[in-house]
């Protein structure tokens, strides 16, 4: 018993001593394995709070248009006032409120655009127009010290996605006007930056929306005051989180899914795999297609290696059998340049992956099994199928 008591006392003393003598965590972690880098002592309070807000509320506003986004609506909807972040922290999934209902999309003349929004949306395109007096401005971000009485409006610009009446899906820029929470936002925006620490900080990134204050002294783009880690201060993030906004603009920027793609089940765009790399030429003939209904998607690629959908049609088992009948005539051709085509089809179905066939050039035929030179007979047959589908004129005249 005495031995047990001695050991227990020894453990108590050892744990207490080492806990009191615990090594200080240095300013920069240069040692081993952890992905998280920490701020020592009380500073981590700020990081913890800010980090949680950032992870759960800032990210969703830049989840843009793949066509499956929950923020897509059937029509443009300016809607009523709503929280900027339609989040329920208790759910913790970061999902945002989905807008609904209708109005005509803004005309191109009403485009409100900034380079920062473009970057955030990853849809920078020539359609973007920098207006002389945009509602949101990404220029010269600054700490804004403006009296509430001088403010005429505050706008928040961020990304979204929109489903048009024809079913096509577009990435959009959304301009929200702040209707509640202005005072808190202004108060927190006017705070000074905290001095940056020499200590290491956690590594989460922040994508904050563009917030523009329109006042009697001009248009100001808010730069959030930062904490010791250079991240937006938690008070500012809290103010952002509590904003109530009203959508005033939603501008389609770039189509991410066409109505044709939705109607045909084909992808709106398809990487021209044959132009990316030259696979080893295969011997013999390609494996025959499964004799079941297939889909043929027709793509046109110009200078890029991405084809855009121009037609899509279903192939009957009879058509598939006919294609299989031509397969033995497909041979390897060492002179065939796989990049020499601008029109190609993708054959795909439930029982198979896909095969790609160039309709011009040397008619290269590619599948996961290798690459061949497509025979003239195969290309002629596929072209005939397209012409007889009623889509041929639109496709083959291009």
């Amino acid at each position, binding site marked *: 018993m005495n*031995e*047990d008591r001695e*050991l*227990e006392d*020894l*453990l*108590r*003393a*050892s*744990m*207490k*001593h*080492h*806990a*009191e003598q*615990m*090594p200080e*965590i240095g300013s920069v*972690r240069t*040692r*081993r*394995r*952890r992905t*998280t880098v*920490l701020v*020592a*002592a*009380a500073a*981590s*309070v700020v990081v*913890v*709070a800010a*980090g*949680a*807000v950032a992870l*759960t509320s800032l990210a969703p506003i830049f989840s843009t248009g793949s066509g499956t986004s929950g923020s897509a609506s059937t029509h443009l909807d300016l809607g009523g006032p709503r929280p900027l972040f339609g989040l*329920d*922290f*208790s759910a*913790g999934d970061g999902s945002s409120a989905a807008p609904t209902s209708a109005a005509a999309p803004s005309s191109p003349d009403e485009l409100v655009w900034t380079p920062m929004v473009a970057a955030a949306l990853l849809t920078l395109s020539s359609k973007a127009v920098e207006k002389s007096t945009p509602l949101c401005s990404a220029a010269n971000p600054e700490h804004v010290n403006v009296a509430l009485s001088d403010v005429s409006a505050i706008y928040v610009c961020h990304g979204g996605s929109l489903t048009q009446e024809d079913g096509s899906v577009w990435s959009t820029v959304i301009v929200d006007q702040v209707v509640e929470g202005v005072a808190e936002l202004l108060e927190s925006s006017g705070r000074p930056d905290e001095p940056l620490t020499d200590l290491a900080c*956690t590594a989460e990134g922040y994508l904050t929306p563009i917030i523009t204050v329109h006042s009697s002294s001009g248009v100001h783009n808010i730069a959030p005051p930062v904490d010791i880690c250079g991240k937006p201060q*938690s*008070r500012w*993030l*809290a103010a952002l*989180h509590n904003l109530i906004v009203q959508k005033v603009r939603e501008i389609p920027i770039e189509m991410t899914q066409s109505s044709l793609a939705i109607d045909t089940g084909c992808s709106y765009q398809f990487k021209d795999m044959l132009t990316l790399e030259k696979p080893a030429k295969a011997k013999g003939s390609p494996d025959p297609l499964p004799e079941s209904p297939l889909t043929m998607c027709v793509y046109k690629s110009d200078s890029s290696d991405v084809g855009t959908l121009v037609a899509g049609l279903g192939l009957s088992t009879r058509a598939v059998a006919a294609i299989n009948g031509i397969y033995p005539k497909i041979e390897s051709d060492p002179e065939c340049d796989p990049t020499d085509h601008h029109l190609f089809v993708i054959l795909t179905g439930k029982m198979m992956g896909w095969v790609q066939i160039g309709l011009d050039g040397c008619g290269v035929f590619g599948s996961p099994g290798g690459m061949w030179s497509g025979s003239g007979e195969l290309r002629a047959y596929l072209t005939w199928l397209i012409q007889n589908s009623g889509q041929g004129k639109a496709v083959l005249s291009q």
Partner: protein
Amino acid sequence: MGSSGRVPLAVADGSDPFTDFVLEHRASLVRLAYVITGDAYLAEDLVQATLLKTYRFWDRVSAADSPRAYVRQILVREHLSWRRRMSSREVVHPEPSNLVPALATEQPNSSDREEAWNLLATLPPKQRTVLALRYFDDLSDEDIATTMGVSAVTVRTNASRGLATLRARLQQTKDNA
């Protein structure tokens, strides 16, 4: 999250209950994490992960009879969960400072203390966690069972095996000296 479904980031007077909690308890949580893990960096990471989780479920934590006990439970379970996840790909070594022989100026029993600390690092995570909660945080076996989410019998078994291992190894060290 309360009726509003939101985390109370700040209240009207500018204070923040979560921040207050962290300021009050963070240091003791880090010390507990250090005793459990034997690694200062791992302890910091563990507390950081624990506080992030605490923040997400702050309404539940703050409504508990003892928020500190609730957070300790999060910490311990997070640790054991980490250990499970990392066990196949990472070997945690004791801090180099723990391997430095005790200084001559320390108390006469300091070498035993150092030896006990180093031997603690060799115990399986559950045994070490039980001993840390029992002898550092002075919890009863029932409270340890609640904290770890196991039965009191499991706690006593782990404690008994851990102590037996330590006793045997300490004796072996003395015999070799």
